């Protein structure tokens, strides 16, 4: 569908949130996880922009969490994947797998 596709950074952020434990995905944690997994430093502005876009598309939903002293008393916004987002994750994975299978010429099985 037009407008439903994900950009490269959107896909990276989205998959990172999906991989994080539920209730752990907030701005800085997502940034750190992306850095640990891919070695890529994401700008906080780009990250929040992407999060807002994914939320407006209905793939994510957010809720405010607790405040800590190191955040100057500001609360965290935790993101979780919606059922629509889960469906999109499955589609992304199956599309990528199909392409890799064509490249490799063999069938890839997910354990």
């Amino acid at each position, binding site marked *: 569908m037009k407008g439903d596709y994900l950009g490269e950074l959107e896909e990276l952020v989205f998959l990172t949130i999906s991989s994080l434990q539920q209730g752990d995905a*907030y*701005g*800085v944690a997502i940034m750190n996880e992306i850095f640990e997994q891919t070695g890529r430093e994401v*700008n*906080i*502005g*780009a990250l*929040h*922009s992407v999060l*807002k*876009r994914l939320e407006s598309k209905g793939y994510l939903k957010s809720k*405010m969490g607790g*405040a*800590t*002293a*190191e*955040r*100057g008393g*500001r*609360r*965290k*916004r935790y993101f979780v994947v919606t059922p629509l987002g889960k469906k999109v994750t499955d589609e992304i994975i199956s599309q990528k797998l199909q392409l890799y299978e064509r490249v490799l010429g063999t069938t890839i099985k997910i354990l």
Partner: protein
Amino acid sequence: MIVDPPKWADGFLRWYCHPELLEDIQGDLYELYCYRLQRYGRRYADVKFVWEVLMLCRFSLLKNPFERKKQVPLALEQEGASPPSLNVWHMPTWNDILFETRNKDYGAYVIRNAYGGNMLLGFSVVLLLWIVIFAWWWIKFKH
């Protein structure tokens, strides 16, 4: 720990950032600032904070200057408050009335108070006009 990033940059962020997103964005920036302060020192943390505030200035995160703020009178927030009458708090404009009627909680009362008054006034004017015209016709043609 006291988080004390450059004040002008923090103020700039508060000025342009959308209020709904400000709290968590500011919190993330403070958390990163705190981490860099402990690990790399104040100078590096300050420079990175300012850079990130400037990089955050994106169209999708900006405050909308044309967005109407929801004006809920203070009395409504208290439990058991009576339904509002717009005249008590401010002189309503048509836009105010239209905006307030969309509220699920007290929209009906706004319609009753604002439109009800207008309809009564309109009816009174029509009735007065009818009496005047009838009186003029009665005087002119009957006598």
